[in-house]
């Protein structure tokens, strides 16, 4: 469903110092996969995510989403696709301050033509286990809860793909596991998940791992037995009691 062909992204002006954040990267991701993208800092992970999420355009190469080339689309068309097909989860949550969980989750629906936005937002919060927090302001929630609100926001418009750029980066290991658990559950229900992470341990929860180094894809392998975040959490509970 996602296909990148020889994608390059070069920062800096011609003649000046240039940085190849992505260097001829090619990649195919099928519907329903759970892919982890790992790599060192500065390797090009966020650049990849921005291009996959259509927040940025590649310098060269082709990008097919559901067999449709998207690099020729206008900004407004890209905004429409982002709204309908892609859900974003960020490292820094990016929830609106002084605003309730429910209002945050409703946000993507404002830019769609969907009705009953309120009900849909409550439903999405239910999927991440936060039905009882819908009226809470985001600053009243823990980091893990805030990130789950962000996930609810990412899935409220029923996108095909959920993109996470180090969503566990700002969380302690338990909250991180909870977030990964929610992503695994979404994946089981059919969503395609692309998870960017520093941590190879987090990456082991995916079905497939892609490693980037200096803007090039250096490794791409299937995970035979992905870890189950839910089971690990249950284990943690047990040892704590």
């Amino acid at each position: 469903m996602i296909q990148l062909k020889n994608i390059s992204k070069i920062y800096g002006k011609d003649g000046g110092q240039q940085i190849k954040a992505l260097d001829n990267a090619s990649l195919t991701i099928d519907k329903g996969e759970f892919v982890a993208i790992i790599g060192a800092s500065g390797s090009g992970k966020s650049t990849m995510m921005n291009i996959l999420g259509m927040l940025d355009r590649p310098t060269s190469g082709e990008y097919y989403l559901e067999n449709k080339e998207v690099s020729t689309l206008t900004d407004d068309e890209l905004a429409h696709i982002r709204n309908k097909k892609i859900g974003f989860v960020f490292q820094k949550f990016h929830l609106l301050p002084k605003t309730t969980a429910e209002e945050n989750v409703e946000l993507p629906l404002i830019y769609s033509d969907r009705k009953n936005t309120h009900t849909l937002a409550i439903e999405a919060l239910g999927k991440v286990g936060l039905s009882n927090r819908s009226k809470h302001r985001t600053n009243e929630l823990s980091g893990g809860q805030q990130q789950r609100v962000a996930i609810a926001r990412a899935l409220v418009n029923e996108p095909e793909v959920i993109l996470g750029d180090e969503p566990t980066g700002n969380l302690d290991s338990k909250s991180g596991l909870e977030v990964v658990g929610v992503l695994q559950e979404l994946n089981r229900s059919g969503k395609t998940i692309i998870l960017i992470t520093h941590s190879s341990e987090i990456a082991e929860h995916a079905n497939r791992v892609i490693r980037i180094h200096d803007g090039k894809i250096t490794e791409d392998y299937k995970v035979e037995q992905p870890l189950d975040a839910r089971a690990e959490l249950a284990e943690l509970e047990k040892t704590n009691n």
Partner: protein
Amino acid sequence: MNKYKIITSSFRILRRNKLNTFFMILGIVIGIAALSITFSMGKGAEKQLTEKVKNLFSPNNILITSGRVELESGRSSESSVTNLKIEDIEAIMNEVHGITMYAPIQVTPDRDVIFGNKNISTAINGGTAEGELVWRRSVIAGEYFTKADEKSLARVALIGTKIAKKLFENSNPIGEQIRIGAVPFTVKGVLEEKGIDPHGTDLDMNVIVPITTLMSRLMNVNYIIGAKLEVEDASQTEDIAIKVTSVLRERHSLNNNETNDFSIVTPVVVKEIIGKMNRVFTLFLPLISGIALVVGGVVIVVIMLMSVSRRVSEIGLRKALGARPKDIMFQFLVEASVVSLLGGILGLAIGLTGTWIFLFSRGLTFFIPWQTILFGVLFPVIIGIVAGIIPARKAAQMDPIEALS
């Protein structure tokens, strides 16, 4: 895009940023309050002036005053000219055709009007039998003067309703003896209610006695300060005014190089005066308040720009979630116009209350010119949109990646 949700969310955002919202609203409130006060008062003054002048001065009236009239204020300048006589007016009546009636004008400074132990100080006007028609003011009780009253220097008086109320309370004043200074008068009639004239004189405080009585018994003068003429055919008024001028110049033996020692006010002159005053009321004063409004707009621009810089990540996020540049633009324009609309409504409320208090305290009737309401709502929205454009464009053009990183 769900416009309704964006509008309601803009209310929420404004509520949650109270300080910013307060200052943005304040700027507009001040501007609109000032604008609506000056405009309403101006319109009120204009309306009152026009109505009163229409009442006093119809298209077939000519007003002669001794001395020169200051056009700017519409008031005759305080002059000691004593050469306008009733005989001058009688000569005009004889020599110029087309004038049906006239009323000479003379008035005392404030005098004590006394009944029993009650005492009011007011100016005393001179009247004639024809004055009833010329001034378009009759009596509601008793009778008007007669020619015989004029001839015999009768000591009879017509009093305004407020004078009647103050001196006689609820008892019948007709036939009662009052004193003006030391001179006794009999109350002959109570004048129709007229309210306040364009100069601010309360006409219901009038006391009118025959002008002959006034001149000989109360003032001991042989001149009048003016006269109002009634022309038969309104289309002839300006022509007749020219003839009146030449008769008066001749009678006052003025050479060609001497200016008039009297003034002639015709409907054309009155229109000019009213026009001049109205420009002050409804153009100049509101223009000054308009400047306050522009300052309010600038405040919005500055605060919105700050707000855009502070909300970079929100804007980036909204874009990532599918907002198009025009959606972002719409949101900020809505915020700016909601703020200034609120400011406008509040300013209008304050302005109209202020106007009401002002007019009420002066005993004038309050009315709301429809333009005030229209401008009070329309101006702020326009200002909000114009002031919002720069910040909104800045927000709309923001790069989501930079905003989110």
